């Protein structure tokens, strides 16, 4: 008679979990209704599969290869702005993809800073479109993620080991072999796999920098089948291919992906006695400057050109900014309705189980879910009129895995410390949430809400499928301005979008922490 001694029950969480599963399953049903297996794998499909896998593999490889020296430099050098730089590594997570793409275009594009420099030196220009550009943008987003994972790995090496190495006066090569290499072997495969999976489903980057038969990902092919040909059967069939590909990769990844460090704990410095040589100092310095420039220059250019373009933005940009704000707010509400009961449910179960439900949203790609729902909605209602709510729900589901990873540990802590007291006072269900769990987890709730809001406001994914010509979100509006060569207006829109994403994140994150202290 093992009674479940928890002040909260998992009933609502099970409902929320079923909703997520049902939402994904419904998309499968929609796809299944239209997909014709007879269409088989033509040369175009094979081309898309090959490109998707190749760009994802290259992006993962390059990201981790450069992340190793960058993370090592950050782990062993004490310097001004180090904390700022580590924080900056978290920024791409909430950075709207289309804004980053605009910044990368300004630096690496045809008339960008790099090509201008190359031209001055009499060297041939590099093109940012196609495979180069897609990989470059993916590295821009994932090099920081890989660096954070590795930095965490470096910090997991106990300080005593470095003291021991100093005691034994081990040369740098031996320090690397005995302390750092084992950690790298532990973390690198998982980090690379995680980035590989993320890049498999990336859409906005391929939309803006890819295209053409040689540089089309499956996700982009779904979009093209949808928007250009309105061939639902083809879109559905491509979705099946995408599902098999990403599902397989995600299943493999599930076993080796390391914990994603989402916040905190990165400011600790381990005192090091090795790596004092001039060459190593120089190498670390170069790595840090290069890494910081790679991340900062595109953002700087977005800010500069945005400031000059902001006067040029048409009224439609401000309208879509409002629409985006509305979508983000709705997304946050949906997320809280799903994530709070779900994390409560997960908390009442044995460690480790049930989190898989959150990952379901991630391995099912947004365009795939969008395609499935479109097929189901189409005969019943006008999908375009539902574009905003659908976008908000899909965005919430994409943010769900991250939100669960943030919320569950906080709720576990609260229950471990105060569960007994709740029980003897008879604080149960809503009262336990209201007076104990929510207040205790407020900083984490603020963080999750900020993350979701920022991800949602910057999302250019499923909205592109359902797009309403008149009412649309800011990222899509910005993409349209770019497509119409209204460069200045697009730059202004990019600055607005960047400011909104950062502001939402900052306000929610700080707000949660401030309120918890007050």
């Amino acid at each position: 008679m093992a009674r479940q001694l928890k002040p909260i029950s998992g009933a609502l969480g099970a409902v929320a979990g079923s909703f997520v599963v049902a939402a994904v399953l419904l998309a499968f049903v929609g796809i299944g209704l239209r997909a014709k297996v007879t269409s088989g794998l033509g040369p175009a499909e094979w081309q898309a599969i090959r490109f998707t896998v190749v760009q994802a593999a290259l992006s993962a490889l390059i990201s981790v290869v450069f992340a190793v020296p960058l993370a090592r430099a950050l782990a062993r050098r004490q310097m001004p702005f180090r904390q700022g730089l580590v924080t900056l590594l978290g920024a791409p997570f909430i950075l709207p993809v289309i804004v980053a793409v605009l910044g990368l275009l300004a630096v690496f594009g045809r008339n960008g800073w790099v090509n201008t420099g190359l031209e001055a030196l009499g060297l041939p220009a590099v093109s940012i479109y196609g495979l180069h550009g897609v990989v470059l943008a993916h590295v821009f987003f994932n090099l920081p993620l890989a660096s954070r994972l590795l930095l965490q790995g470096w910090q997991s090496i106990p300080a005593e080991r470095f003291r021991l190495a100093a005691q034994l006066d081990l040369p740098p090569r031996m320090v690397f072999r005995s302390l750092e290499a084992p950690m790298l072997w532990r973390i690198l495969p998982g980090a690379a796999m995680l980035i590989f999976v993320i890049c498999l489903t990336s859409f906005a980057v391929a939309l803006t920098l890819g295209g053409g038969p040689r540089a089309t990902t499956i996700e982009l092919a779904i979009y093209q089948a949808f928007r250009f040909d309105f061939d639902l059967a083809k879109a559905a069939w491509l979705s099946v291919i995408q599902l098999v590909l990403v599902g397989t990769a995600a299943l493999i990844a599930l076993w080796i992906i390391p914990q994603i460090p989402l916040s905190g704990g990165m400011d600790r410095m381990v005192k090091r006695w090795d790596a004092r040589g001039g060459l190593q100092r120089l190498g670390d310095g170069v790595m840090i400057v290069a890494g910081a420039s790679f991340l900062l220059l595109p953002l700087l250019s977005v800010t500069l050109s945005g400031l000059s373009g902001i006067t040029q933005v048409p009224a439609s940009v401000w309208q879509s900014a409002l629409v985006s704000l509305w979508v983000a707010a709705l997304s946050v509400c949906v997320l809280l309705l799903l994530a709070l009961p779900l994390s409560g449910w997960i908390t009442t179960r044995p460690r480790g189980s049930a989190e898989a439900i959150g990952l379901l949203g991630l391995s099912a790609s947004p365009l795939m879910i969008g395609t499935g729902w479109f097929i189901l909605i189409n005969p019943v209602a006008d999908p375009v009129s539902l574009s905003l709510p659908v976008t908000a729900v899909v965005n919430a589901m994409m943010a769900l895995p991250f939100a669960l990873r943030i919320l569950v540990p906080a709720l576990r802590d609260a229950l471990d410390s105060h569960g007994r007291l709740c029980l003897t006072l008879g604080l149960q269900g809503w009262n336990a949430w209201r007076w104990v769990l929510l207040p205790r987890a407020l900083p984490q709730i603020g963080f999750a809400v900020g993350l979701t809001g920022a991800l949602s406001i910057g999302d250019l994914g499923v909205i592109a499928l359902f797009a309403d010509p008149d009412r649309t979100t800011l990222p899509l509006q910005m993409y349209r301005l770019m497509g119409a060569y209204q460069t200045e207006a697009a730059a202004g829109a990019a600055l607005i979008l960047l400011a909104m994403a950062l502001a939402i994140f900052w306000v929610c994150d700080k707000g949660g922490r401030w309120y918890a202290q007050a």
Partner: protein
Amino acid sequence: MLKLEGVRIQQGSFSLTADLAVEKGRKVAVIGPSGAGKSTLLGAVGGFVDVVAGRVACGGQDITDARPGARPVAMLFQDNNLFPHLSIRQNVGLGLRSNLRLSARDAQQVQAAIARVGLDGMEERRPAALSGGQQSRAALARVLVQDKPLLLLDEPFAALGPALRAEMLALVGDLVAETGATLLMVTHAPEDVARIADDVIFVDAGRADAPVLAAALMANPPPALRAYLG
């Protein structure tokens, strides 16, 4: 008042049996070596530890399977007796209404309890702004408004210094005398037994003995207790 009839607790290879009764209004110390199961015994009464056999009754009511909040029991743990994010007033108020919707009369009662333990004027502070002794007083104020016939203390004052602990025990003694509650408290210190306890339950070798008059027992301890007291 409290009856444990043929109770057996099993936690892995650890087991504890208890067959005893405590009369109403008595102040009972639970003593015994570390790991003997003192806290486990209190946990079984409070509803946090399952009993595999036997029956727990309180005031004639079978509470063997009742959830902790539904038992006629107030309990203080070794730590985490207050919610750190709530004010003292809210912490005490939760003992009265678990939704914290306090009527004017409730609020008055909360105020009176806070005043009774000597925390007048500190109602709006959070626990972190109080000293260790004041935090214990706040927890006792909540026990007061909970107004349960049985009070369980699982060494809530263990972190306090000797003088402060004596002060808290004196306060506990006064409070249970006023409310007529029965007290069951775990302790390590023989001087605590002398100071407050009427009876002693000795827990050792997987068994909780029936309560014995404290003065008589401490004057002439049986061999096992003598070995523990040293």
